[in-house]
């Protein structure tokens, strides 16, 4: 039995960090992107709290970015996926794909 170790919200956030990349992967942008992609409202606090947890698990790391004039000179905390984070995402996908493949009605071939 394989342990997924990731909740749905966590997995989505992890993926969003990967999608947004080095410039935009900070709490406010991630929350915005989440709303855009899922249509569900989420508070920055909730996102930040989850990012903090993921960092604690070692799936993410973070660094303060450069100061920008737009935020009154305040810096952003930019999150990036770690190697373990990537592997966990991949494991999670593989696990689900393997589940999908065992489900006859939806058997699809991934190219």
């Amino acid at each position, binding site marked *: 039995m394989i342990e997924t170790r990731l909740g749905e919200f966590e997995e989505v956030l992890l993926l969003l960090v990967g999608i947004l990349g080095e410039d935009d992967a*900070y*709490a*406010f942008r991630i*929350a*915005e992107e989440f709303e855009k992609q899922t249509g569900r409202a989420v*508070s*920055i*606090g*909730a996102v*930040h*709290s989850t990012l*903090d*947890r993921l960092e604690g698990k070692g799936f993410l790391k973070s660094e*303060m970015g450069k100061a920008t004039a*737009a*935020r*009154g000179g*305040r*810096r*952003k*905390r930019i999150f990036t996926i770690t190697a373990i984070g990537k592997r966990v995402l991949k494991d999670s996908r593989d696990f689900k794909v393997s589940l999908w493949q065992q489900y006859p009605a939806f058997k699809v071939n991934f190219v």
Partner: protein
Amino acid sequence: MDELNKPPVWANKLLRAFLREDLAEEVQGDLEEKFYSDLRTKSSSRAKLSYAFQVFNYMRPFAFRKRSNTHLNQYDMFQNYFKIASRNLLKQKLYSGINIAGLTLGLTCFMIILLYVQHEFSYDRFYPNTERIYRVYQKQAGNVFMGTDFFAVTPAQLARVMMEECPEVTHATTVQRTSGLLTIDGRSFWQEGIAADAEFFNVFRIPFNEGNPQTVLTDGRSIVLTQSLAQTIFGNQDPIGKAFRYQDGEGDFTVTGIIPDQPASASFKYSFVIQLLYSNGYAEEMKRTGWSNNSYYTFFELKEGGTISALEKNFAALLKKYQLPDDYSEYPFKDQYFAQSLTDSYFQTGVNFDIGQKGNLKVIYAYVAVALIVLLLACVNYMNLAVARSIKRAREVGLRKVVGAMRRQLITQFLGESVLIALFSLLLATGLTYSVLPYFGRIVERPIEFNLLANPMVLPALLALVLVVGLLSGSYPALAMSSLKPVDVLKTKTDIKVSGFSLQQFLIVFQFVASIVLIISSVVIYRQLDFMKSKELGYDKENVVTLWLKDRSLREKYQTLETQWQEHPGVIATTITSSLPAEISSSTMIKKNADNKEDMAIYQWSVGLDFTEVFGIELVAGRNFSRDIKSDEVDNFIINETAARALGWTAEEAIGKQFEYQGQSTIIGVVKDFHMLSMHLPIQPLMIRFSEYRGRFLALKIESDNIPQTLSHIETVFKKNSTYPFEYQFLSDEYNKLYNSELKLGEVFGFFTITSIVIASLGLFGLAAFTAGQRTKEIGIRKVLGASMQQVVFILSKSFAWRVLVAFILAAPIGWYTMNMWLQDFAYRIDMSWWIFALAGLSAFLMAGISIGYQSLKASLTNPVDSLRSE
């Protein structure tokens, strides 16, 4: 940007209030970015609302300020405090020793007094209904006897009347003290007991070992014994139903019940309770009408919820109803009855003919005050030495602050240290108290138990005390030290001064004030005691043997005894008297003379022949009694000089004059005034009557050599004439008993004074050692420049001498005032002459001199090379 388009200020403040410091920048940035992006699509108020919503949503555990962050380190810091504290204690053994010794002594004094007070307040609390037991006493306004007009005795009928007519009273009992010889099968036992009516055990609800408390005293011929008396008399036999004789009473008394022995906390103790009807006196008294004969104690049990004020109002009505108009018509006073709870009456002094042992609240307060002062002295020592040492530890404080110690932490550290030392001292003090307590108990004549658990309040109180002592003694050093500025402390090479020298001076002065006041008190107490012991009394208390006439039948045999005693050359003279001259405890009223019907209170003393010779009382006018003149035994009296003066005559004029006492009485002689009462009271008018059958004491003047042989002769003669046990007292011992409480006070004060001097000296010694240590370099330089040893000693001692002087100026009036108040209790007292104060001041100087002198001398003898060599 205008005000409208900014995030709401309150929300921002809230955010800053809870948000972790390290998250502030990014979070505020994010939220602000969100706000401005919202502004593009939404109204300003919507954006603000959203901002607030986002702030609230940040209230998540991960984002909160971590208060426990500093706590993580706390354990290690405490370990460090411990280590530093113990290193400091071990490194400076002198200071630690002084501190701990001082605190131990102070705490010991305090614990002893605490246990003493606990004991004093434990009296008579063992009855299940203690708080409802009361006694009746009365005030006979104007009838001043032995310095007071309160009397503990009441009429015989009072108890019965109270039960019948006072709704507040459930039970009331009439009680008398009795002592006598219990005789069974030819064996006799002299015992002290209680004679009481059948209600006794309804008021004093004692659990019975055998017998029914309701019925044990219903029969007029019953007696109840305590367990140990029953054991002594009957061994293992069953005592119930056994009969014996009591005193010269007719017929047998039957044991109807056994009660446990009286606990140590009983204020009046007895080994048996006999029915009051054993003597005919009580039965006759009950038949009498009128309330004027007061010879019984009345105790009662108050109804639950009843009040004393209601009852006391009732008393007035009862007096009106039962007292006959002519009950006190002969006497110029009015009586008034009061009720008092049993536990309060233990502390009630100044009531004539009172029953049982008494505690003295004034004395208790004095002890508590002195114990507190001694404890305070020890605390002051700690503070002083801590301030002094703080100079050494200033660098530690500086460094701690540089490394990041907060002021609060430093305060905690120093307070913790002092509390720990206090706790350690408490442990030592507990041990010391345990070993000293029996001696103290002997001094104050109380069986004080070392039982810290007897009262659930004692242990917490002691711990609280340690906390207070620790905090008190540590407070100043803690506050002063923690306020040091690291820059000041660390930059200079020389030692800096910690602010607080003025306080230190104040504290030293305080210590000396306390010590000098205590010395003055002790000296005054000892002087007064000495004065009372050596004062010319007007009678000779030396070499007088007295026997209390337990065996009343000896009164008739007195002349036989006298003849047989006189056969021995060691016996100079014998007499029989109603009381001993040290304390004449009977008084009456006379009318001055036939035409002037004015009343006068006068003490009365019944004596046998030769009383002047036995007691060495001097006859200044007239003649002594004679057996040959018949009227001497009826209406001829001898008076003292004070009585002659009160009647308006000189001693010579008084001879042959008359006054009215149960008919016309003639004065045949006047004796020189002697101290017939304790020194608390002035000499009063006294009349002496020749009446051998009123005798309660036998007194013999004996030669001062070969006393043992003379005593054995006295005993042999006594044994020949009586079956009672032979017991005697020397008059001088009886005299000293009058001042028992003063003697105790003197000893306790002496004890405390010495302790406080030791503590203060210890502190001064430590402080002097410190000062000398501080000034080694200065002394070195002075010596190099040619200062002599004396000059150095002088320089070092000067400041201390000043403080002692200031302390003396403050202490002298305080000591004078308090001791003057104490002396007011004595009609005959010493003057507080200047030398007492001089002595106190001088001993303070001496004690300071010894404490400082050693250190100064040591400092002045140091070779300057040693002190100046290294920098």
